């Protein structure tokens, strides 16, 4: 790393067609810096902004070639702002697709063509696009998918409830769950770099609970908008770019099932094993760039709350109240990465735990299931499923305290 504003990285010649802007525009004056400089060294200033604005600011600095999406509450605000970034020249191509299957397919083409690709959706939009989203990892497509979680089940609601992640985490996509506006900014920027590492070459979804984060303001520390990440280098990835004679393009164009079921089974098995191995290989970059798959508070406590997303914020306050008002130290594990899942980290952290509480913003309890599976045979702790809230209401800290202290009365 050189002194000053970071190392200049030579732009690659690849990527989508560059829209030449005026030489004097701010976007064209953005300087390329190394990911390390962007993430750790660049001076940061504090802003009080919504989660949607935090995502916009991350995208401004992410050197994005193509952004395609279809609007859905609560995602619309973010992608509308990405449109503004396109008008200012920070994003090279941008358009509104006709619906999510089309959007997810279009962005897949963009990624396979070598462009740094971004899309975003929410709840029902993710479910609609899931057919294509589930095929991205096998296509070895570096894509960043922002998800602003929203109710997917009936009765209809636009409120934050993250049941949709139960489906996404089993597709081979890397999935991060941001707690707040700061996370949404940081994870989004880092997702591009992790997604495009040669030994990863996979889509990365950055999920956040809608409204609570997207439409509420929080403090975000951000580097200057005069710098941006280096462009995608599609010639140093796991599979060839723009080459229809090699996998994965060849595999979709000329599917093995057309030859023989047995060839198909073998190809599928080895291909998916490699996808999930690539998910695991992303760990080292999550450790390097994001400070690990988990954050642990009060590791020696007997009672530990394990959560992801907005449930972490609620748990932090419950843990604070337990300590300051009731004199009890409670542990807290924030899960940053849902895929890869922090199995080893949880086994280490929960060795001495007696009770584990898993608050969630959905009715299915997908995080509880993963935690119970990871700890089975590795912890003697009682793992308590809940508390949970349904339909997008906030999870009151009183409910978490009620689970921590079952003999006291917190909920009226």
């Amino acid at each position, binding site marked *: 790393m050189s002194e000053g504003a970071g190392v200049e990285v030579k732009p690659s010649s690849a990527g989508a067609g560059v829209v030449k802007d005026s030489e004097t525009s701010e976007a064209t004056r953005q300087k390329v810096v190394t990911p390390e400089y962007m993430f750790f060294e660049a001076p940061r200033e504090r802003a009080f902004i919504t989660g949607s604005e935090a995502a916009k600011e991350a995208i401004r600095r992410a050197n994005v070639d193509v952004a395609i999406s279809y609007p859905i509450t609560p995602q619309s605000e973010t992608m509308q702002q990405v449109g503004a970034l396109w008008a200012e020249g920070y994003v090279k191509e941008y358009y509104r697709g006709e619906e999510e299957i089309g959007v997810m397919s279009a962005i897949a083409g963009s990624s396979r063509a070598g462009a740094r690709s971004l899309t975003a959706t929410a709840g029902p939009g993710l479910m609609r696009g899931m057919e294509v989203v589930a095929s991205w990892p096998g296509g070895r497509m570096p894509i960043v998918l922002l998800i602003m979680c929203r109710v997917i089940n009936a009765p209809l609601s636009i409120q934050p409830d993250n049941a949709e992640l139960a489906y996404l985490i089993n597709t081979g996509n890397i999935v991060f769950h941001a707690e707040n506006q700061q996370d949404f900014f940081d994870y989004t920027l880092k997702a591009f770099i992790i997604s495009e590492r040669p030994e990863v070459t996979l889509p990365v979804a950055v999920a956040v609970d809608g409204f609570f984060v997207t439409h509420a303001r929080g403090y975000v520390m951000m580097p200057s908008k005069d710098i941006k990440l280096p462009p995608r280098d599609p010639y140093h990835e796991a599979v060839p770019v723009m080459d229809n004679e090699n996998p994965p393009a060849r595999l979709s164009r000329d599917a093995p099932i057309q030859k023989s079921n047995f060839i198909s089974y073998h190809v599928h098995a080895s291909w998916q094993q490699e996808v999930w191995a690539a998910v695991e290989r992303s760990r080292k970059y999550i450790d390097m760039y994001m400070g690990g798959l988990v954050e642990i508070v009060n590791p020696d406590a007997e009672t530990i709350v394990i959560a992801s997303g*907005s449930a972490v914020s609620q748990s932090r*306050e419950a843990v*604070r109240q337990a300590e300051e008002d009731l004199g009890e130290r409670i542990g807290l594990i924030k899960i940053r990465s849902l895929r890869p899942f922090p199995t080893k980290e949880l086994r280490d952290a929960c060795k001495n735990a007696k009770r584990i509480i898993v608050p969630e913003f959905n009715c299915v309890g997908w995080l509880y299931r993963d935690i119970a599976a990871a700890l089975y045979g590795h912890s003697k702790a009682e793992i308590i499923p809940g508390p949970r809230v349904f339909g997008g209401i*906030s*999870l009151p800290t009183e409910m978490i305290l009620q689970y921590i202290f079952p003999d006291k009365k*917190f909920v009226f």
Partner: protein
Amino acid sequence: MNKERYNIRMAGIGGQGVVTASHILSNGMVIMGGESTLVPFFGSEKRLAPVESYVRIANGKIYEIGEIIYPNLIMIFHPQVITHGKSYTMPFYSGLKPSGVVLINSETPINLVADEERELMERNARVYYLPATQISREIADTDLATNMAMVGAVSAIMGIPDLPSLEQSVKERFLGKGFVVSGGTAALDNVIERKFAKKEQLLKKNMEVIVAAYNFAVEHGWAKVKDKVQA
């Protein structure tokens, strides 16, 4: 400073400035050096429709997000919230913490049914009736400063944010930049601004209403603070 925090649920009807009041209280706390978050909650944006707003006030770090289910303080901006059920949260005191405060804008106590009286008593609720609209009319010659009276009484009852911070917050609300207001609110702001002709006059009247309600709370022994202040 001691660690202090409280959570508010405000309920009123469209056009009363419930959301504006929550911005002023919230920003007042930030100006005082603390933290605050707010979540407005309304259906269709029209006059007389139910509006709620949730505000967290703290002189330390705030982590939680979303609506407040178990408030320490409930502010009822209009008697019809109780008498006509113009609210998203029924009964009006649902979730109130033990020894919590209910501040109701009404000149006279509202006749509650026996169950409501009993449940409020079981929670050891402190129910205060503030003639906020009357104070607003007497001092500012308009109903539109009702929300200012409510905010002023809260400052006295809870102790934070203090009056100088609230004054700065009111200034920023009507003179400053950075506040995103809805179309309906912007129209009402214009009505207020026309009515007072000059913004300076508007600020002065608003502050007088805030101080009068603050002193009303002190006089009635509701307040954490002991001393009345001069406008």
